[in-house]
């Protein structure tokens, strides 16, 4: 019965993957920017980045999704549904990316920064050439975990009406009434994607890891 519904299921899987990839790229980019703001010498930016992380780490993603999808249109802020979900996922996961990258920044030995400063690097150069590349290299595995969490969070898109894998599987089950095989199949797909992310993170880490 899975084969009968292969077409809608594959399309839903495609939606899950698109949401995953776009929000992964967006949250990595935004998360790095937030980290940079968080370690900058400008107190206002540091405070703003701190507030940003605290806000999104402490408010449930589902509450943010409902706010963005159902409430914000009342204020005239309307976007296509999937775009809205991606935007919410990006700003939410960026907070976790920022936390992970910051722990990487803290792992860069001060001597390196002092050496860079001794060579006359400006702060921007220190960040761009010394800190951020090393920070990213040390947090590949934690970032992989954030991306797996993001994968699981894409399922929440179902609650606001995006037809992604979880929602499509549920629909198929409502027709076929074969919950165990149908949900197990979906579970296997999620596990396979998570495994792929984990393996990719492992491969990347092996390539770029800095042994300290």
């Amino acid at each position, binding site marked *: 019965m899975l084969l009968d519904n292969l077409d809608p299921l594959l399309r839903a899987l495609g939606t899950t993957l698109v949401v995953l990839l776009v929000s992964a790229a967006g949250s990595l980019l935004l998360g790095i920017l937030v980290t940079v703001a968080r370690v900058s010498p400008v107190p206002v930016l540091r405070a703003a980045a701190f507030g940003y992380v605290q806000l999104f780490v402490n408010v449930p993603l589902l509450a*943010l999704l409902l*706010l963005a999808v159902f409430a914000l249109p009342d204020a005239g802020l309307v976007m296509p549904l999937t775009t809205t979900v991606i935007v919410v996922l990006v700003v939410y996961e960026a907070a976790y990316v920022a936390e992970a990258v910051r722990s990487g920044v*803290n792992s860069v030995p001060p001597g390196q920064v002092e050496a860079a400063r001794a060579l006359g690097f400006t702060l921007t150069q220190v960040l761009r050439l010394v800190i951020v590349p090393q920070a990213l290299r040390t947090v590949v595995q934690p970032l992989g975990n954030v991306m797996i969490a993001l994968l699981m969070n894409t399922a929440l898109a179902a*609650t606001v009406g995006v037809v992604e894998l979880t929602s499509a599987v549920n629909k198929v089950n409502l027709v076929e009434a074969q919950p*165990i095989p149908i949900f197990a199949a979906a579970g296997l797909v999620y596990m396979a994607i998570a495994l792929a992310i984990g393996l990719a993170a492992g491969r990347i880490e092996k390539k770029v890891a800095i042994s300290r």
Partner: protein
Amino acid sequence: MSTATPSAKAIAKPPAKAVRRSHSSSFLYDEPGPRARRRIRLASVLSVLALLGLLAAALAQFASRGQLDADRWTPFAQWAIWNYLIVGLWGTVKAAAVVAVIASAAGVVLALARLSHQRPVRWVATAWIEIARTLPVLLLIYLMLFGLPAYGINLPLLWKLAMPLAIANSAVVAEIVRAGILSLPRGQAEAGASLGMTRWQVMRHVELPQALRTVTPSLVTQLVSLLKDTSLGYVVAYTELLYRAQVLSAYNRLLIQTFLVVALVYFVCNGSLSYLASRLRVRAGHRSAAGELETTRG
């Protein structure tokens, strides 16, 4: 020994000038000189202006749709609305407590099982943890809601929310506890073994108590994530904060206001827990430093 180590630490500390900033990344830049201070001031002013501009744009957008009108916010000064939401908050706390108890117990057992020398036990625990870590909770909830009733399994609402969360969180707790046990120095287990303790006795009396103490901050952080996840009660129509918010907003039509207020409630509750976790982390840092002193002394 105990006096020598702190002074060595004091030497290793960055110079007092940099510490004055009391910011962890202060080593990134020198104490700013007059020009740098001017630049920082300029950047501060510019970022304040940018942030204010963003806020003003948002407020203007809200105002243009009448979302800032007083009569849309004054209802939230009424006790009746808060009373309604507090019942939801109580449901959130109840669900989180149930899940926390089950997940902690199961998590400790799973962690011990994954560290077991018995292969089948280890395999089962590993499989459980790896599966539970990579399944979306919502998928499990849909299975509970729409799948299992077909087989005559129809749990009460609280459990339709709590079971999936307990499954997911048991795996996370197990990994946290396991990391704590693995981080203990080898000598701890060796000392226990040299006293003639069995492996299980060493685990129960020596390793587990220490591991649990060191991972307490991570467990509190996990509690924040758990409290957030109870918002999935919205999906199963279990009376928790977000579900109540949804019902309330359907009644009073104040969607933006209701969801913002509820997000604020979550923020305050979870923010206090996060703060507690960070305080515990700082204290644990001091304690583990003190612990190192004690072990080196022996």
